[in-house]
């Protein structure tokens, strides 16, 4: 057989030469110190991000889905109107008798003065004339830009 066609070395013996690749001198004195320093600093404690980061990196679709779900939940929380608890809201309303009493012209105080009705009128004058509150239930109060006579 021609000398040039003889195998020089089996591949595993060539690969084994990689064991001569060595890190910089002194590296193995530093490595344990770095590891112990990180342990003492509390590095590697399992947190939410530490647990999920590898999964997010490996599967971008999962990361995008979680991000979209988070943004959706945040948007709903910000833009949805505050929900009023019906029972609580009803309790806060004055009763029918209170409405009627407060609307009487002979009453001591107006609804505004009694503190449960807002007014756009800076001069909190007692309301005169027929009451709007004598109807069967609470209703919206029209706001007038003109001073009452």
């Amino acid at each position: 057989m021609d000398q040039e066609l003889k195998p020089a070395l089996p591949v595993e013996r060539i690969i084994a030469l990689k064991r001569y690749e060595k890190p910089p001198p002194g590296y193995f004195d530093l490595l344990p110190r770095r590891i112990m320093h990180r342990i003492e600093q509390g590095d590697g404690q399992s947190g939410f991000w530490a647990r999920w980061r590898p999964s997010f990196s490996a599967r971008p679709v999962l990361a995008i889905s979680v991000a979209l779900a988070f943004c959706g939940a945040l948007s709903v929380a910000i833009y949805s109107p505050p929900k009023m608890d019906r029972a609580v809201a009803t309790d806060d309303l004055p009763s029918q008798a209170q409405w009627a009493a407060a609307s009487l012209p002979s009453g001591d105080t107006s609804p505004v003065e009694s503190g449960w009705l807002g007014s756009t009128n800076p001069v909190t004058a007692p309301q005169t004339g027929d009451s709007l509150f004598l109807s069967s239930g609470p209703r919206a109060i029209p706001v007038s830009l003109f001073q009452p006579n």
Partner: protein
Amino acid sequence: MPTREPDSAPDDEWVLVRRAQHEDTRAFDELVRRYQERIYATIYHMTSNHEDANDLAQDAFIKAYRALKSFKGNSSFYTWLYRIAVNKTINFLKQRKSRVLLSLNDMDSSAERDPDMVALVSHNTPRRDLGLAELQEKLNAAMQKLSEQHRMVVVLHDIQGLTHEEIGAIMDCNVGTVRSRLFYARQELQAYLADYIR
């Protein structure tokens, strides 16, 4: 054949492990010093990048420290530690698939006197002018073409000198699978390094 460090006394190791499980950091430091070279080398030969190997070796030891309480001693500590390092490395390699950046360590000058190296450069190969740096680059490039599983078997067997049984325990597969992966990995390497083998 690759040299292999003798196994440390298992009793002594078990004492260190038990102390480390009770958060004795000096005992864990001793375990790190005992295994750092083998763990680092395994990761380095898998990644062909010193910086990545440095980060991953640290992460593997820190993860081992945090998980030490769950270590029951069903396998040897070093098999358990290797398993952590191997899983961490394979996960890392799956993520970085798109970028393979070689950052190679220098070759020890004693490589030039290795009989296999002498045989390689003095034999009638088409690459008689083969230098250490070129050989190193070619070897690493060829290794990076293998799948992670095939590369890991080559690293653990041909470079680290572990037995098929030990590799099976570390990679959680049977000996037949280890042998088969080694066979196909060597075939692939032979094709990539054809110029240096003939």
